[in-house]
């Protein structure tokens, strides 16, 4: 079962659901990293609203996936953690998720849109710099 990744401008949206196999998650990681790299993605949101149960194995997978994407330079937000999942994660001892979290998809998208907005001045300067560099080389 291939997990869909949706693109909203500079943001990718995907989700973890019940019944995912190890293979599904590895494929998702590859696909995410590939898309982030190829289409210059600035933010990834992973929605986990559908997860009623998160054990330490799944928490590790979420952390690993987020870490991989962050190394590429994109922001990551996990949205939709269920209340009792938060409770059990803290009790297990996995309270420290290494990644920013958002209450739901809407909040998560808001957070990432802020990041994309903040990146814009930098991106503009970068474009200008590249253009000037090209002009200097051709002269």
């Amino acid at each position: 079962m291939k997990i869909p990744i949706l693109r909203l401008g500079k943001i990718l949206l995907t989700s973890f659901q019940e019944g995912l196999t190890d293979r599904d998650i590895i494929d998702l990681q590859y696909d995410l990293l590939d898309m982030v790299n190829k289409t210059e993605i600035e933010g990834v949101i992973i929605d986990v609203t559908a997860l009623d149960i998160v054990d330490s194995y799944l928490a590790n997978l979420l952390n690993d996936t987020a870490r991989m994407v962050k190394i590429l330079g994109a922001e990551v937000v996990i949205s939709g953690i269920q209340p009792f999942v938060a409770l059990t994660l803290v009790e297990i001892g996995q309270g420290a998720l290494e990644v920013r979290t958002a209450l739901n998809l809407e909040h998560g998208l808001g957070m990432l849109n802020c990041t994309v907005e903040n990146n814009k001045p930098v991106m503009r300067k970068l474009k200008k710099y590249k253009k000037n560099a090209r002009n200097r080389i051709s002269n």
Partner: protein
Amino acid sequence: MAADAGFKDADQVRFATAISELTQNAFRYGKGGICEINVHSDGFKTAIRARICDQGPGIPNLDQALSDGFSTGGSMGLGLPGVKRLVDKFKIKSQPGKTEVEIVIFIKPRIGVTDL
């Protein structure tokens, strides 16, 4: 099963999470096994008990396995000690060829850290 026995949502999720951890261990490290769940009530309190047995190579150093941060699988090592914190009673026996974990959760209000 937990819902039918009258457990609240939080305890249902706790129990399900613990089962998920233990059965995954049995599958990944223990070459598979069986999981038995039963509910017992004595009129005063109700308990849901699960027993997970696997036929794997066993855990050579139980103290180590039950401490935070130890892992043979490259993970963060919070599985077994995590389950211990989640449930009210936790028993583990392990030898080459058989590992058995037994957990119990009681219906009761959770006031603070429980004695294990």
